[in-house]
């Protein structure tokens, strides 16, 4: 048995699929019923959901918010792209000329 099989109950995978919306309608109904009648199982599902939310909250990135930054970043990217586009067009042009000369 793999480490996962010995460490986690088979039902744990169903719980993850359930909170991710990856279960069929029938399976969802069964799970809804189970959670309604078992506070233990409901707690397991709630803890998994909470863990997801905790992970998301634990890593809020400190990225610039102002539009000026993003406009400037966009411009920087497009300048390089446009330069590369001109080089590519020049290469195409000289390539075509070379082929004509060789004929």
């Amino acid at each position: 048995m793999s480490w996962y099989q010995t460490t986690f109950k088979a039902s744990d995978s169903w719980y993850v699929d359930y909170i991710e919306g990856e279960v069929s309608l029938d399976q969802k109904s069964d799970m809804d019923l189970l959670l309604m009648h078992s506070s233990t199982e409901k707690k397991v599902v709630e803890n998994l959901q909470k863990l997801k939310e905790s992970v998301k909250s634990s890593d809020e990135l400190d990225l610039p918010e102002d539009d000026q930054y993003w406009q400037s970043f966009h411009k920087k990217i497009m300048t390089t792209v446009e330069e590369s586009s001109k080089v590519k067009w020049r290469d195409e042009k000289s390539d075509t000329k070379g082929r004509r000369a060789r004929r």
Partner: protein
Amino acid sequence: MGRWQKKLPDHENKLTGLVPGLVLAREKVMKSDHILVEEVQQGQVASFSALVSRHQRALLRLAMRIVRDLELAEDIVQESFMKAYTKIDRFEGRSTFKSWIFQITINTAKNKLRGKRYEHVDIGKVSIPVSAKAESGVEQADYQKLLRDKVENLPEKQRLALSLRIFEDLSFKEIAEIMECPYDTAKANYRHALLKLRHNVEEDQRLKGWNEIEWKDQSSFCLEAEA
């Protein structure tokens, strides 16, 4: 005339002449990535500008999560867009443009990290100051750091699947495209990541009571699964 300078079809030129306002209005309508990519492949650099505007924030977030350095992340995103532009002719649309450029960004970031000798911090060697106010365990900021470190210590594919799902809110289909693996494998990587993370958190005495902390409004918590 080179590949990058194809003429517009005649009917479009006539339309422009007759109803310039119509063209202007059309340009302002949001085009799908698929259409923008086709236009770039036909030589319209302006369409690539629209793709950059649309995806630059998500890509910078993604790069930042991998390298944790804004300047380096900016370089990675710039390089990724460059690679996408130069290889756009080879893009056949088997995945979405978003998945494709995410994949390019991840690979570019990994290559940069290899070059910079990225060092993992061993959580066991980090001393976390405990506030005198804390009655048990550690305070919220410390929980966050410990949790972040536990995510960082997950196996690479599991960490990636988890990050793409939780932070970027991608579907498993998109995650599978980015990771170039079957749908079920992407889901399995995510599942294993979340369960392993839960196990590691519950085993760590420093994170005792983590699930009692109200970090977010729980009123939106919903047990409804998508159909």
